[in-house]
């Protein structure tokens, strides 16, 4: 019996995990089906563009700036071991565009946006505002979820593109001021080595991450427990699940894009 109980605990949590995955998958399907059917709420969509996209710019920009700078330092010191300091511009650009831009941008937005969405929708749930929406003939899925999911999916690639530029600029700043690179050469080097697909793959990742962030925020908000405690838990779950799903999706997408 004592030996069996860890097994049964494992079994229970596995079942719970599978059930959660099933619920998220169902929710995912419902979101897709509502995206393609009217009515749509363009005004809500614009508000969310502002909330999710515009207001995330500082967070994403600062993250990219410092990451680009740190990356330049790392690659310089690492590269010096085999006399390859000159690769700094190209590796910084590739690292930022392919990997760090979308992933760190996505994680920062997960912290900011998934939390905000889950808290807002969770509060609406516990104060009966979601019920009120329904009685006013408005589908919460269409009115709350669809605008957020669409806005996040559209905004994140743009944020990633901005982050890429700022990240490369961060590398440039460190490279030219501390590592003795010539400014023109640095930029020339970056432009020569960076390929279209390096950037495009990062933007596609960004779109997927944006979708994940909004989906998790809405899902956990809609399923929030009762009271302030329920909302707190929903917020935490939204950020944690969005972050983990972003990292997992990043691994899968990287495999798909670059394994061949």
């Amino acid at each position, binding site marked *: 019996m004592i030996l069996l109980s860890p097994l049964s605990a494992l079994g229970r949590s596995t079942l719970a995990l599978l059930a959660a995955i099933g619920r998220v998958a169902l929710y995912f399907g419902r979101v897709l089906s509502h995206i393609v059917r009217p009515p749509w709420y363009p005004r809500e969509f614009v508000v969310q563009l502002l909330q999710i996209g515009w207001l995330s710019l500082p967070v994403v920009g600062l993250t990219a700036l410092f990451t680009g700078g740190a990356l330049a330092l790392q690659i310089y010191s690492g590269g010096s071991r085999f006399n390859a300091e000159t690769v700094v511009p190209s590796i910084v650009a590739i690292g930022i565009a392919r990997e760090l831009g979308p992933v760190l941008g996505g994680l920062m937005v997960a912290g900011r946006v998934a939390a905000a969405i889950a808290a807002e929708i969770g509060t609406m749930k516990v*104060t*009966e*505002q979601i019920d*009120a929406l329904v*009685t006013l003939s408005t589908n919460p899925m269409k009115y709350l979820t669809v605008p957020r999911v669409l806005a996040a999916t559209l905004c994140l690639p743009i944020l990633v593109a901005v982050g890429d530029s700022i990240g490369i600029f961060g590398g440039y700043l460190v490279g030219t001021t501390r590592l003795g690179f010539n400014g023109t050469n640095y930029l020339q080097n970056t432009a020569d080595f960076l390929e279209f697909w390096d950037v495009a793959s990062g933007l596609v990742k960004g779109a997927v991450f944006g979708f994940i962030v909004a989906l998790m925020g809405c899902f956990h908000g809609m399923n929030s427990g009762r009271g302030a405690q329920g909302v707190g838990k929903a917020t935490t779950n939204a950020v944690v699940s969005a972050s983990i799903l972003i990292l997992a999706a990043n691994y899968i997408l990287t495999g798909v894009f670059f394994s061949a």
Partner: protein
Amino acid sequence: MIEISALNKAFGLNRVLQGVDLTVVTGTSTVIIGGSGTGKSVLLKCILGLVAPDSGTILLDGQDVAKAERDAFLAKFGMLFQGAALFDSMTVWQNVAFRLLRGSLKRPAGEAKEIAVEKLRRVGLTPDVAEKFPAELSGGMQKRVGLARAIAADPQIIFFDEPTTGLDPIMAGVINDLIREIVTEMGATAMTITHDMSSVRAIADRVAMLHGGVIRWEGPVEQMDGADDPYLRQFITGSAEGPIEAVR
């Protein structure tokens, strides 16, 4: 006509509704009374489909509401929630005019706002309240905005969950008169939950008392005082002694 039969609803082990039977005739006002936590709000939410009942049927004009076309069904209803449930991201008038600003009842914003201000006036709120946000209002004012929102699109059936709770006696009287007026003049069907016995007398055509998960007593308001049900008697007189246990 709303016909509820053998309605059951449990939350886990908490068996809230245990076979509720109730009929509400079109164009009449039914008041539901009953102790706190007996499931009055849950009953209204079951009718609206906000809470899925475990078993039992609810018919609206002979049609099962679980199978009805949702949009057409909900378009007939207005609901005032116990906690007002105002959207805190919008101003008061946008809350009241919510239905009039989107969907099938959509009309120009100016017109919608006029209607909203008029409905606010009917619940005793001045036009300057219209531009405020719900968080800037007192509890009783929020309740009245919720009421204005519930009646804004002139629904055929209106549910009021404790419309006068938190209001001063004069305002409570205004709201009671308004509910009565909506039923007698506009021919709407109303179901009202209240704990306030003077409200019951002012609003009700019929009274239903929910206790122990079932409708304990149901009848015309005139017969309420003469009824010999001990549970109802204790509730009307507000006595601590009686079959309903008050935990102390």
